[in-house]
């Protein structure tokens, strides 16, 4: 069913957060679900929204707005939870909307340092310059890294 991927391209799940468009490598994404009631866990970092029940498993949910120091988002009909899997652990991330899956060839990707916008560059692997928009590609391991020391700077 899937068309052959070219050597120099990758598939990304593209979602919206605030006004920006982000991309996550599709291999890490398990599923995308609608918003669920989230149980807050007291005493955790503020970017951890809480936990949800994913078919009998309790998984943590990250609030990317707070993680990236963006303005607090509202929950709308298009709000989704992107469930990713890292080292056998499932983690949910609240996003403002998921639009599509795109193929991005490597030559479209630029190093994050050239365009600094929205979030700290330490979370990015690069920025893809598509025909009609910019897609910020996330470094999932960095995003989910707990207790990291760097202070986030809001540059924009």
């Amino acid at each position, binding site marked *: 069913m899937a068309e052959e991927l070219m050597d120099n391209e990758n598939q990304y799940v593209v979602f919206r957060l605030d006004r920006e468009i982000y991309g996550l490598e599709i291999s890490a994404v398990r599923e995308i679900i609608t918003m669920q009631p989230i*149980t*807050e*866990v007291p005493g*955790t970092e503020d970017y951890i929204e809480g936990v949800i029940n994913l078919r*009998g498993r*309790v998984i943590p949910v990250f609030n990317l707005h707070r993680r990236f120091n963006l303005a607090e988002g509202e929950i709308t009909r298009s709000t989704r939870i992107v469930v990713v899997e890292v080292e056998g652990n499932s983690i949910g991330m609240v996003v403002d909307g998921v639009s599509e899956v795109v193929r991005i060839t490597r030559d479209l990707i630029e190093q994050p340092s050239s365009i600094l916008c929205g979030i700290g560059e330490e979370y990015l692997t690069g920025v893809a310059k598509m025909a009609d928009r910019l897609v910020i590609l996330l470094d999932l391991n960095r995003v*989910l890294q*707990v207790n990291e020391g760097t202070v986030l700077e809001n540059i924009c």
Partner: protein
Amino acid sequence: MGLNLDASPEELKIFLEEVEEHFQTLEEDLLRLEKEDEFNEDLMQEIFRASHTLKGSSATIGHHRMAELTHAMENVLDKLRKKQLAVSRELIDILFECLDHLRILRDEIINDEKSDLELEGILGKLSAVQKSGGIPAGRVDIQPPSSKASCQESERKIEIDLTWEEKDRIHNAVEQGLKPYIIRLTFDVEPEMLAVRAFVTLMALSELAEVVKSQPTADEIEHEKVSDTLVALLLTEGEEEKITKLVNELPSIAGCEIQLYADDIVRKTDSSAETVNEANNLSEERNQTGDQAKAGSAVKNVSAKKANRTVRVDVDLLDSLMNLVGELVIDRTRLFQILGNLEAIDEMDEISQDLGRTSIHIARVTTQLQEQIMKARMLPVENLFNKFPRMVRDLSQKAGKEVNFVMTGQETELDRSIIEEIGDPLIHLLRNAVDHGIESPEERRAQGKSSTGQLKLQASHEENHIIITIKDDGRGIDPEQVRQSAIKKGLITEEQAKRLTDKEAVNLIFMSGLSTATRVTDVSGRGVGMDVVRNNIEKINGAIEINSVVGQGTEFKIKLPLTLAIIRALLVSIGKSVYAIPLSTITETIRMQRKQIEFVNNREVIVVRGKVLPLIRLKSVFSGAVSEEEQKEKLFIVVVNLAGQQVGLVVDSLVGEQEIVIKSLGKYIGDVQGISGATILGDGSVALIVDVSNLIKKAAS
């Protein structure tokens, strides 16, 4: 470096499982062998068989070193079985050493890497034992036969040195109608053949009668420490003639004297009794071959039957089954909620009713499935307890203590994950009991106790819990000493120490500073790592309690849930969230008026039946401070108790009691103060589980 074994991974897996069983058998049986005074043929056979099977299967898979060691071991065991060797502590030590070596060799297979274990040492010991027919060195054996010469001169009475036990046995046997004979045989053979002749004669005698004692002993005969006479004390139902007849049939006997054993000899030998070696175990000789065959086949039949009815299952499979059932349990509740919604919308039509019936059926099957899978995960604690007798034996030998270790309730079943968790705390408590609890034999005698300390490990079922108790009759924990030590370490002030009851003072040993700081042997020794013990137990929703009386001993009582995965909990609401409090920690729930709250040291307390109970407001713990206006007039208080400490948890309301499936919060959330995990409620939402021990500790500090 790999082992290059001659077996497929599947075969190895089966081999490893079998090997573990045989190791277990050997360990238990060797301990029994050491304890039992009488020669137990069935036991000996079982030990021999286990070792023999090990030899066979290790050779089959091509583990040559293992085969070599078991082969040497089997040679020694064979001699033991045939009574050509006597059981002694040194011999048991060597056999245990073999077992330890075998375990290392087994691990080679698991790690697929050759260990640097050298077998020369143990093989040397084994062959020395086997060849000598006794333990090589350091033994006081029966006085050499030369001492008899003088006896012979006086009154021509045949004499033999006897120990207390042997005399006891003779007295008992006489009461049962057996006759004790003492016999002296003189051999007429070349000196080189004396040992062989003496041995054959002794064997022949033992077929007819029980040989209580012989001079020289079988050991000495194997050492070739023989003269041309053999004196033996026999117990038999038959008459003197039978013995003489037998002796007459034996070749190379030059002279034979036989007498009924007389009491006055007993008196004479009293003083020398202690010096005589106890190892002469040539008792209860029976028709060996016949019995052996019978015992062997009987055991085989039983195990064959068992094997057909069980299947080995991977633990991971059981774990994932348990998870799946957990999901079914949640869906069951959801189904009923959906059904309720349907009813609310409209009158129940045909389809809805059908759905209702099916839901009820699914619910019933789910409940049964849950119970059955929980049962499948249960193991008798025996699997864990099995390693303790050996451990206690080694520990007490090292510490120079005499300990009688008794275990009961090994058949009690527990979830295997709990069994895994509880092992270390139990080892710790047993070690403490042997090291520090039980006094040295001299000290015990000085206090008028028996020199052997009693150590009891007991498991039992109590409602929805398993209780494990460890009880010793040692010196106990002195609350005064604990108080002093805690003050010295700056853990509590003198003022606080005075106010503690003795029981509370004893509980101080669970404080972390007290235990790890200086290995407090002065505090009845029970200090090392007790905080770790308690933490481990509380981590699995268990509780530990101490009862100790100075001079009389200490009892640790551990209360454990049947399973880790599912517990009973009280659901309470705090603000908009629902929290679960494990029922095992709750003593009662109380409704109170706000004005009943009093303040001590600026902390909220209430007085319940004359006792002051500190309060913790869960709302302020979990969501920051509570403003005055928010406080309601009526309070719900859940009283929790852990290790003797009571605290009242203030909640907004009680929701109900139910079984919950415990889920971890995962590493991304990590350790959260006051929360031990999460669970999924019937409506699919997640509730957090309150970590009571953490809250109590926080309240205490």
